[in-house]
């Protein structure tokens, strides 16, 4: 294993679960905690850029958000005279996640995915007067590529989370 850049990581080695949590919260930060700042910066910037690039390709609505109603369901409810509500209270959370499996991979991008998810729901909320949403949903190949970008970014960050936590464990073992 590469020795840590900073002596602090050697003197006060962090707990692996703390490193894993930090690596999820800020992509690449787990490596910074084990004293490998350059590695962390490279991984963090790449993961965030990949995630943002996915949103630029497919639009914010390419994110799959569990418990959010689809546009056509909202329009149908408005036509029946209902109140517009983007939340989906009828489905169980597990069923929703099973129906939107890419959301699991996107979750590993950290809080940035939650913030983007919030804006995705907002961009997908139907305006009762125009019956349209502020954001346009992508389809076919563009949607596939956008989802692939955001999901691969999450999976790469998961890899970094596991690796940085493993390195923290090795630091604890080293006398």
């Amino acid at each position, binding site marked *: 294993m*590469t020795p840590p850049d900073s002596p602090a990581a050697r003197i006060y080695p962090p707990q692996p679960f703390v490193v894993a949590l930090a690596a999820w919260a800020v992509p690449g930060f787990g490596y910074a905690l084990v004293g490998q700042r350059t590695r962390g910066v490279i991984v963090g910037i790449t993961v965030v850029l990949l995630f943002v690039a996915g949103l630029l*390709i497919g639009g914010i609505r390419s994110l799959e958000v569990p418990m959010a109603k689809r546009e056509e369901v909202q329009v149908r409810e408005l036509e029946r005279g209902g109140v517009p509500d983007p939340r989906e209270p009828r489905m169980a959370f597990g069923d929703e996640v099973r129906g939107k499996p890419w959301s699991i991979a996107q979750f590993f991008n950290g809080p940035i995915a939650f913030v983007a998810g919030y804006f995705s729901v907002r961009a997908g909320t139907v305006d009762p007067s125009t019956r349209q949403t502020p954001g346009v949903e992508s389809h076919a190949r563009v949607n596939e590529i956008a989802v692939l970008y955001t999901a691969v970014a999450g999976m790469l960050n998961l890899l970094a989370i596991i690796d940085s936590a493993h390195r923290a464990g090795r630091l604890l073992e080293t006398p």
Partner: protein
Amino acid sequence: MFAPLAAAALLAQADPASNPPAFHYVPFLKPLPVWGDRAWPWLLLPLCVAVAVVYKSIKCRTVRQVPKEAALLTVWIVAGMLIAAVVLAAIVEGLERANS
């Protein structure tokens, strides 16, 4: 990383059949107009680069090795995808001929 996105958008605009003239790209609110078959494969390049960079950042002992190793891995990934595309296209072509 964003240069291939811009190149793909330009390619899509150059292909009027695949790009409805009324569609204006709005970042984050509207999808990138890359519906043409000439444009979207270019979007796989940044993905390959990112996968190679993160994978090699994790695997390499020193960070100095990362640029060279990642560039090499990117070439391997792209070559692998091209070979897979050619093989799959040949299989589809063969099946089409067998069925006609």
